[in-house]
């Protein structure tokens, strides 16, 4: 397989995953504008969306004041925002197009149709009352992409690279969402005030990582606590967006890739190291050493893995 092909499959998946994550962050911010929650202004929720997606600096430079309209248009439609849904879907499609020969017709149709339909949408037509429906459409299309990929693609090296891209992006996203509001997840925050503000922020984080419902099943008897939420999103393997789940998957895929190629490259060992760390760590330890430091360190290691992977397999 060409190094460029591996790179395209990796980035195709990363961009599609990112589009979905952005849509979900906006869903959370938009929802909070409809719910009363004490002293917190809903503008803060839009600011959180900008911060978690890494769009804050670009937004400041181009738009300035944070407003619902400004943030949605910047994060969905802006061509100058490298993480806007538009740019993600276009990049995903361009990457898919450049490996048209390496993907199935079903997968191509899912990606291509998503892009065509998205490009047909007039940004002006997405008013606030149409926003939830539109954001959920983006998520649906991303699920369709992943479904087509999992159901039709041959389990060869190309598949492995696509999975690595998918879960490196997801792990990065989860870690960033947590890190942006890490103080909300500190154990002390259980006791400040009457707890309504925290509850609002906690459910926001859970929703941003589609864990609102599943939390209830993972912790059937417990109420919402910072400890449980952090553990759920970092260490619980049942949670498909947790860091542990992502690296469980990455580690499996790394082994498959090593077997496919008959040898391990340095990047695969890095992945195994990260996975081992997550397995051997308990939530208590993370709090002891500092949640923020843990997350920052994780984001760095996840990134370093991605870099080494590009080097090892000649991504062009």
């Amino acid at each position, binding site marked *: *397989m*060409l*190094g*460029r*092909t*591996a790179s395209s499959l990796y980035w195709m998946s990363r961009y599609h995953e990112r589009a979905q994550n952005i849509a979900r962050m906006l869903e959370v911010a938009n929802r909070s504008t409809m719910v009363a929650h004490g002293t917190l202004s809903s503008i803060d929720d839009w600011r959180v969306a900008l911060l978690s997606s890494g769009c804050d600096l670009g937004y400041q430079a181009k738009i300035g004041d944070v407003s619902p309209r400004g943030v949605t248009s910047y994060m969905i439609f802006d061509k100058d925002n490298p993480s806007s849904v538009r740019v993600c879907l276009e990049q995903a499609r*361009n990457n898919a*197009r*450049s*490996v*048209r*020969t390496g993907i199935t*017709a079903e997968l*191509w*149709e899912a990606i*291509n*149709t998503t892009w*065509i339909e998205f490009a047909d949408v007039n940004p002006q037509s997405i008013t606030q009352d149409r926003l939830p429906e539109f954001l959920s459409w983006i998520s649906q299309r991303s699920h369709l992409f992943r479904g087509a990929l999992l159901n039709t693609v041959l389990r060869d*090296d190309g598949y492995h*690279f696509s999975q690595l891209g998918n879960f490196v992006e997801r792990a990065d996203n989860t870690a960033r969402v947590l890190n942006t509001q890490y103080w909300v997840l500190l154990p002390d925050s259980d006791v400040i005030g009457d707890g309504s503000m925290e509850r609002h922020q906690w459910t926001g984080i859970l929703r941003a990582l589609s864990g609102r419902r599943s939390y209830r099943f993972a912790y059937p008897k417990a109420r919402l606590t910072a400890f449980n939420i952090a553990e759920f999103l970092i260490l619980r393997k049942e949670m498909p967006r947790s860091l542990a789940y992502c690296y469980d998957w990455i580690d499996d895929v790394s082994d498959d890739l090593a077997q496919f*190629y008959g040898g391990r490259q340095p990047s695969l060992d890095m992945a195994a190291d990260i996975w081992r760390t997550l397995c051997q760590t308990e939530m208590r330890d993370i709090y002891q050493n500092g949640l923020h430091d843990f997350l920052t360190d994780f984001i760095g290691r996840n990134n370093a893995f991605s870099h080494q992977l590009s080097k090892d*397999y*000649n991504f*062009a």
Partner: protein
Amino acid sequence: MSAERTFFNEMLDQSGQPRPAYSKLNDWLESKPPNFLTRKSREAETIFRRLGITFAVYGSDEATERLIPFDPIPRILSASEWRKLSTGIDQRVRALNAFLHDIYHRQEIIRAGRIPADLVLQNEAFLPEMVGFTPARKVYAHIIGTDLVRVAENEFYVLEDNTRTPSGVSYMMENRETMMRMFPELFQIHRVAPVEHYPEALRQTLESVGPDPAKSEQTVVVLTPGIYNSAYFEHAFLADSMGVELVEGRDLFVDEGKVFMRTTRDPQQVDVIYRRIDDAFLDPLSFQPDSMLGVPGLFDAYRAGNVTICNAPGTGIADDKAIYAYVPDIIEFYTGQKPILNNVPTWNCAREEDLAYVLDNLADIVVKEVHGSGGYGMLIGPTASKRQIAEFRKILTANPGNYIAQPTLALSACPTHVATGVAPRHVDLRPFVLIGDQVRITPGGLTRVALKKGSLVVNSSQGGGTKDTWVLED
């Protein structure tokens, strides 16, 4: 003169009766409700768009992707018509390859005085770097698309030979797939020669011209300029259906005179490159130095006999519009036979008496740029306005050597789905020919159709569409 001259109707004869090859199609068309074709056309468009069968249009700010309009009514050729055409094409492509070998070696045809030396040696498309080099099997143009037009029952003309990187074959294949999906019943009542073997034939052709014939497995790749190229879909389609890698220049590198591709593992040597980029961009070291599309050192690897490039660099001279007028001589010179297919009579505006005639008859003839393609920079006298003709006259007199002219041919017309129903529209035909260990011609080819009433311009960049082309078996 009006554009509404008499033309050959391929479906109906002068009394309005369907010709034998079209009789079943004609009955079938008459049996369908009025909206039927409109609905089917829409269906086809959705299929094409979802599959990403698009081409890019240059000239606008961003190269945008568009669909080539697809006409759902097939064009039909009888077995005997096809036999004559394919024999003529076979003769022509063999002669052109012999010509290429000759002009890059002993230049017998020039010595024999059958073609002016300047016309070959001073031609921009003549590549001095190719002199003395012999590609595998002495084949230069491996993939040719011969553009044909029909003016009467038994009268076909060759318009162009397209010996560089002819495109359109993916449309030939996808058109057929779409037709079979939409109208299975039509295929049950006709015996249509298949086109689905083209990718296999292409791969066989490419493998047969590997630099080292002893090697049991040849690594073949398709070289594309990338996703922004107008024919990118076709490049991907061909690589995919042949089961070979689709590479860009940056995926290849030359080491010790051999060509390799960068893979996720060890570099892999490449034997045959089906390139879809022009000569000038192939190798920045040998040709255009600022080209980002090519591979540094590729041409040296080629000359060292370590890789085959298809089509060979320098084949463009064989479809140069100034050389075109000599193709009948070329055929006679190398095959000793009369040409089976006619050339369109051509005036060479570089010649004074030809230019005088052309200037006197601008309103009736077609004038083309010698090096132009895609239907740009040409004048179609009968459909041009007085002002357009006056403007073109200025351009032509300023640089006559840049132009040739031909009579306006009354292109044949085929039944076509239009807003008002079914009406005749003018068509041409591009059969696809492969030359390697043998000459392989896929029955049919790509029919392009001018969708506007009376229009003779079939180019997709100028609003033309395509049709599935059927060759009926006996």
